[in-house]
């Protein structure tokens, strides 16, 4: 009873902290809220920072043509207040002041307090190191100096000078210090249980308003310091990472390109300088150590985990739909859950390149929903959980969420993997494992032959490189249409040499040039299939020709970058170095084009050696014998889906992949 009461009080406290800044107003002041219309625009423009969001909303509760937008650059005095009204087409855009520094304090408090709702574990208490109280604030405050171009545009108080009179940096430092204290208290008794709440990272996205920082990166960094303290630096993971860091640092030339983070804000390097590179190397090292610490100290409760997945999935659907229906909920969702972008304002499946704000991409949202359903099916089938009628509405909500993400690949893979789960135990008794694998290979080859017969082989093998060439900066003096005709002509004639080396020398990216070389080998080894037609055919089958084509046209690494990558979460070179001319409609030219494959992301960050290390870890994990081997199917499901999505760029998707691996080894089916 007492526990319930304290939980209720904590929830009440959280919501009060959350709501108060948007509610606070003086009813007796001169500035009253009025109905938002064309006449009142001037009134709102001249009374900025005086009328609260609550006042305006309550006065315009029935208006459907009002859109609330967060305005980070406002001062503290304007927090939660109207900073301006504009009319765009038929919609009134009401700007709400949300100063980044104050948002940081509020969001840090709210999300940390939410963690205290997690049940205490019965396992032995740990004593977290107090080193984090100093190291974490130093590292993460330094980000404001190292990525100053990003922060200068986000906060009116921004000041990068290191001095005791710099209240901006001191506030960030002290807030992080308080956060570390809260997390140390939390880790002491709740650490082993924390992993069971990873599903909630999909509703609490955790991206700080106006900051290039994610809450979970902070949390894992603290655990990372604890890992280094308890287990030391001398692990294989750290040694490999050190080798990569060496190449990332010493192959770097300062390049003053800037990426504003866009929808992946929170876990991306916005700057292209050595100092910001070093910051991200340290942060990702801590994050990897943090995951290692979490793995070592956790115990998974399958029943609780499934329940949390269902609750989280349903809540995303609920708040997503509420946000689409109410402009107020929409802006509050952004602030409360730490969304990267505001949620959709319609009930369409996809809009504005984001999925209801809760996911930067519909693909990763689809993967999450399909993962929940697959996890439920696996656990139900292997009798790890019992079906409860209460699960049914939540399962329906999750299925609806999956349907709304339009993620065809996730849906199809969910169906195939579910069939495999059901059939595998029955088949295993009749047919040997070897025969099953042989069958899969025969089916794949037959399917491949069918596809080759259906389409033209020449088309299948060249389409990806043809698409990439269309986006390259070929024939700069011709129009896009003329360029398209010439490239088509050369590809049809099979004369890529003239196109690349005579007409356009040095204009193709190094990736495109290399792939052209591989596709036209000087020595033809019989029966050895060329990798390019396989890649091209795969791209066609999963509808990735355009996106992968753009990636090939854009990515132009040198030798060291090819082998070791550009550094952790460093996309600047990929986005800005190679000159290209996209063959796309005018309206799409300014969009952000990510590679649309986590494998490609991994190549950008850690190069071919990074991919090899990842493959080695994956194969080792998949071939090792664990008690809950059947749960490996979850990791395979995610890895397959990650091949065609950028999920590696999203903190919560990375955590989901980690969880899918951890669950194989750490799970128990009963409650604590």
């Amino acid at each position, binding site marked *: 009873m007492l526990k319930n009461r304290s939980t209720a009080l904590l929830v009440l406290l959280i919501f009060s902290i959350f709501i108060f800044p948007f509610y606070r107003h003086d009813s007796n002041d001169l500035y009253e809220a009025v109905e938002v219309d064309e006449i009142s625009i001037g009134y709102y423009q001249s009374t900025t920072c005086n009328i609260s969001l609550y006042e305006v909303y309550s006065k315009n509760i029935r208006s459907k043509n009002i859109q609330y937008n967060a305005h980070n650059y406002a001062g503290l005095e304007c927090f939660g207040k109207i900073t301006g009204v504009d009319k765009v087409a038929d919609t009134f855009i009401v700007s709400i002041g949300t100063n980044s520094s104050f948002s940081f304090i509020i969001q840090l408090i709210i999300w940390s307090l939410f963690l205290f709702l997690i049940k205490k574990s019965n396992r032995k208490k740990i004593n977290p190191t107090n080193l984090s109280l100093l190291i974490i604030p130093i590292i993460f405050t330094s980000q404001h100096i190292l990525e100053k171009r990003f922060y200068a545009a986000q906060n009116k108080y921004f000041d990068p000078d290191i001095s005791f009179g710099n209240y*901006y940096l001191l*506030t960030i430092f002290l*807030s992080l210090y308080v956060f570390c*204290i809260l997390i140390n208290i939390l880790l002491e008794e709740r650490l082993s249980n924390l992993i069971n709440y990873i599903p909630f990272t999909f509703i609490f996205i955790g991206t700080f308003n106006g900051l290039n920082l994610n809450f979970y990166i902070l949390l894992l960094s603290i655990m990372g310091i604890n890992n280094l303290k308890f287990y030391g630096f001398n692990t294989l993971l750290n040694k490999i990472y050190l080798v990569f860091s060496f190449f990332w640092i010493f192959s770097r030339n300062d390049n003053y390109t800037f990426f504003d983070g866009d929808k992946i804000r929170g876990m991306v390097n916005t700057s292209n300088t050595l100092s910001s590179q070093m910051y991200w190397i340290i942060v990702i090292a801590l994050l990897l150590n943090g995951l290692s610490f979490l793995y070592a100290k956790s115990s998974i409760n399958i029943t609780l985990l499934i329940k949390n997945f269902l609750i989280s999935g349903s809540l995303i659907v609920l708040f997503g739909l509420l946000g689409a229906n109410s402009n107020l909920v929409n802006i509050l969702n952004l602030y409360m859950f730490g969304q990267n972008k505001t949620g959709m304002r319609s009930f369409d499946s996809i809009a504005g390149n984001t999925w209801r704000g809760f996911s930067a991409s519909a693909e990763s949202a689809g993967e999450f929903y399909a993962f929940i359903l697959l996890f439920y099916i696996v656990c139900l089938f292997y009798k790890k959980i019992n079906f409860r009628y209460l699960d049914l509405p939540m399962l329906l909500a999750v299925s609806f969420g999956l349907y709304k993400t339009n993620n065809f690949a996730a849906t199809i893979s969910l169906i195939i993997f579910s069939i495999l789960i059901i059939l595998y135990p029955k088949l295993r008794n009749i047919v040997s494992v070897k025969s099953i694998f042989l069958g899969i290979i025969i089916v794949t080859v037959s399917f491949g032959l069918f596809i080759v017969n259906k389409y033209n082989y020449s088309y299948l093998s060249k389409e990806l490189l043809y698409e990439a060439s269309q986006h390259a900066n070929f024939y700069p003096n011709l129009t896009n249409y003329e360029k398209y005709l010439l490239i088509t002509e050369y590809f049809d004639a099979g004369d890529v040499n003239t196109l690349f080396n005579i007409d356009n020398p040095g204009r193709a990216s190094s990736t495109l040039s290399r792939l052209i070389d591989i596709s036209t080998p000087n020595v033809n080894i019989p029966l050895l299939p060329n990798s390019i037609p396989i890649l091209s055919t795969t791209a066609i089958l999963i509808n990735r020709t355009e996106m992968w084509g753009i990636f090939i046209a854009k990515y132009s690494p040198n030798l060291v970058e090819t082998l070791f990558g550009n550094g952790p979460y460093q996309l600047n070179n990929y986005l800005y170095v190679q000159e290209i001319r996209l063959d796309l409609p005018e309206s799409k030219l300014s969009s952000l084009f990510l590679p649309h494959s986590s494998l490609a992301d991994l190549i950008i960050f850690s190069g071919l050696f990074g991919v090899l290390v990842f493959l080695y870890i994956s194969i080792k994990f998949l071939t090792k014998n664990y008690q809950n081997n059947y749960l490996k199917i979850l990791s395979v499901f995610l890895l397959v889906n990650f091949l065609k999505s950028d999920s590696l760029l999203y903190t919560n998707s990375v955590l989901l992949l980690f969880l899918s691996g951890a669950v194989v080894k750490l799970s128990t089916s009963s409650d604590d």
Partner: protein
Amino acid sequence: MEQNLNNIENSCGVAPEGISYFDPGNDPNFVFVNDPNFIKVTLYDSEGNVAIMNSWFECAHYVNGGWSNAQILNYQGDRIMFLFASLFAVISSIYYFSNIRKKYVKK
């Protein structure tokens, strides 16, 4: 001009007998003469700069240039947040470290 006169009188008071305001222009040799009978007035500009006026004429000239006796306080949000964060840091430190101490005493 009437508005200006009002502003001048609000900030500097009524003009002493025999003195009226005229624009000294950009004369570099112009010197404001101190008036020992004038009660000194402090004026502020929009950037928070402070100037002390020693005569009514000087005061009128500054007011004409946009200065005022009303200090425009810049809302120092960063300072307020710093105080807020400091308070939290002190409270949480006391709680956290006293708890650690208790644990060691128990041991």
